[in-house]
């Protein structure tokens, strides 16, 4: 059944269809609709889950960790400061190898206070070991939830799906709603090998000496590396049931493109419109959307970008003292294998609109820029 719903509710419907068993959350704008609708669904029986109201995001993730360790499918949603407050527990979920799914609505970090979108909240968690999947539409957002659970449970790794504040979270789009009966064909019940079980007791979160710790970290990296194939396989399986899939990355008109714009999130949709317009004017330009950020799909990205003559990366984030974060990753994907110039553009921080005009400005700058020694090009900043 198709419905016109907001991006936040697309997450809720995805969680309902995935039959999460424990949902724990703390309110924060602009995420709160996700868990509000879920609390109603828990009440009216649309989902047979326990809803735990907690006193902070740190506790929300702690409760998910407990629930997941007890062998149940656990979900939470947050944004910005809430995600940052969870930081300690995010590490814990990875180290404990618990397949929790979290939806993060990308919101700028304070101060100054901002409730509008940028990616610095989720990207500041890039090294904790969570899978990160950036969604572009409400349909993709909904569909990514059961995919996330399947990926998570196969690898015993937590997965974060990410959506832009307001541009997606509060925007209404037509979504083909998935139902649990269909999803059951795709996502088996969660049944972990090891869980808190009085009949088969284990010790969780114990001390590991220097003789063991490194191996456990190696196994996390191994799961990440396997993750790329698992994500592709899960996407194919999803496509078999629902007729839709999203891939690790999404190239658009890249085959004969001399210049490729690299984007993520909702900027990807706007970029496609600019690509079409510029193609109409005879410019050989394409776009590449990065959907999966962790694990980073180096080979897939290289395969697309290595055919171009120039690459421009649009970052709605910044690693202060360095560059845009996607820019850094793209550079490292190409390093040593090609000398294609890569240009970095910072745009849209704190919810500033990245319009077709802004993207065209970036494209035109990248085309005419003969000497990209400036790795950070700030777009639209008043100075």
């Amino acid at each position, binding site marked *: 059944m198709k419905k016109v719903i907001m991006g936040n509710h697309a997450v809720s419907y995805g969680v309902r269809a995935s039959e999460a068993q424990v949902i724990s959350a*703390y*309110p*924060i704008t602009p995420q709160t609709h996700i*868990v*509000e609708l879920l609390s109603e669904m828990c009440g009216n029986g649309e989902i047979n889950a326990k809803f735990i*109201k907690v006193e902070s995001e740190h506790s929300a993730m702690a409760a998910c960790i407990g629930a997941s360790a007890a062998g149940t499918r656990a979900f939470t949603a947050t944004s910005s400061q809430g995600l940052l407050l969870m930081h300690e527990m995010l590490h814990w979920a990875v180290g404990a190898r618990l397949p929790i799914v979290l939806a993060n609505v990308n919101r700028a970090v304070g101060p100054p206070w901002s409730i509008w979108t940028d990616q610095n909240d989720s990207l500041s968690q890039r090294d904790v070991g969570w899978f990160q999947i950036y969604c572009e539409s409400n349909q993709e957002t909904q569909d990514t939830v059961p995919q996330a659970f399947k990926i998570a449970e196969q690898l015993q790794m937590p997965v974060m799906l990410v959506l832009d504040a307001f541009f997606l979270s509060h925007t209404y789009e037509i979504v083909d709603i998935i139902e649990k009966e269909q999803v059951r064909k795709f996502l088996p019940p969660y049944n972990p090998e090891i869980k808190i079980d009085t009949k088969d007791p284990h010790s969780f979160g114990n001390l590991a000496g220097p003789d063991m710790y490194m191996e456990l970290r190696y196994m996390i990296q191994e799961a990440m590396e396997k993750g790329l194939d698992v994500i592709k396989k899960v996407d194919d399986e999803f496509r078999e049931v629902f007729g839709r899939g999203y891939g690790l990355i999404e190239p658009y008109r890249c085959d004969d493109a001399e210049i490729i714009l690299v984007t993520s999130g909702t900027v990807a949709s706007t970029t496609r419109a600019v690509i079409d317009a510029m193609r109409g004017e005879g410019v050989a330009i394409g776009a590449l959307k990065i959907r999966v950020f962790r694990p980073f799909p180096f080979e897939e990205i290289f395969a697309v970008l290595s055919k171009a003559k120039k690459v421009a990366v649009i970052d709605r984030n910044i690693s202060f003292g360095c560059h845009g974060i996607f820019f850094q990753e793209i550079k490292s994907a190409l390093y040593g294998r090609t000398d294609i110039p890569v240009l970095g553009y910072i745009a849209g921080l704190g919810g500033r609109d990245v319009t077709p005009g802004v993207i065209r400005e970036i494209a035109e700058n990248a085309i005419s820029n003969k000497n990209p020694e400036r790795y950070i090009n700030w777009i639209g900043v008043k100075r």
Partner: protein
Amino acid sequence: MFNYLEYIREKNFPHIWCAGCGDGIVLKAILRAIEKSGISLDETVMVSGIGCSSRTPGYVDMNTLHTTHGRAIPFATGVKHGNPKLNVIVITGDGDATAIGGNHLIHAARRNIDITVLLYNNYIYGMTGGQCSPTTPTGSRAATAPFGNIEPPFNTSGLAIAAGASFVARADVYNVANCEKMIAMALAKKGFSLVEILTPCPTAFGRRNKMASPVKLMEWLRDNAVPAAKWKKMTEEERRGRMETGVLMDVDKPEYTAEYEKLVTSLRTGK
């Protein structure tokens, strides 16, 4: 006639509070209490966390610090330590101070550090759209308790008293004269002081609980927030579901920054 303009940042108005919200009434009571207590605005720092209440410092013309959710009290603790001569006021709410920042509230009270906490209790997370807070009454409806809240609420003033606060009062925006008086007394107190101020939220709380009209919520405060003198004459039965207002605790005990100074002085002088 009290000239509010001397105390506010006019350019930040109109304020963001909804029609019927009590936070504006509290703001005015705070300003009058500040004037009454004679403290200098330049030597006063107002610190807030997150929520509707925490917008207050944006509107007042003094040193202000708008901080993260629940952390106003530790920020304020740092301010007071940094310069113990400052008057430090924390503006917070029930969600901010008793949920995400609950631990900070009890420990600041236990230490008896000289800060004044003005806690606006509207029984709900107003700013994020009406989720259940630790003071939402059992049975009330909220966005995260659409079928009624099953959790018992905190008695926030009682919590502060039990934790060791030297001054605790409860006030409400219906009896605004008392509210102003309680704030003035708290400001004058040397030590940790807390005023729990009951304030209506028709948008997020009232609307879900058959009190959508601001007048209804004001009437609810009138009928249920009971001044101490009257409270004393009430039977247990009459007290049920009601709140005592006025001074609930007022004792003198050693203040944290003064004790710290004393210790350091004695260590350095050997006296």
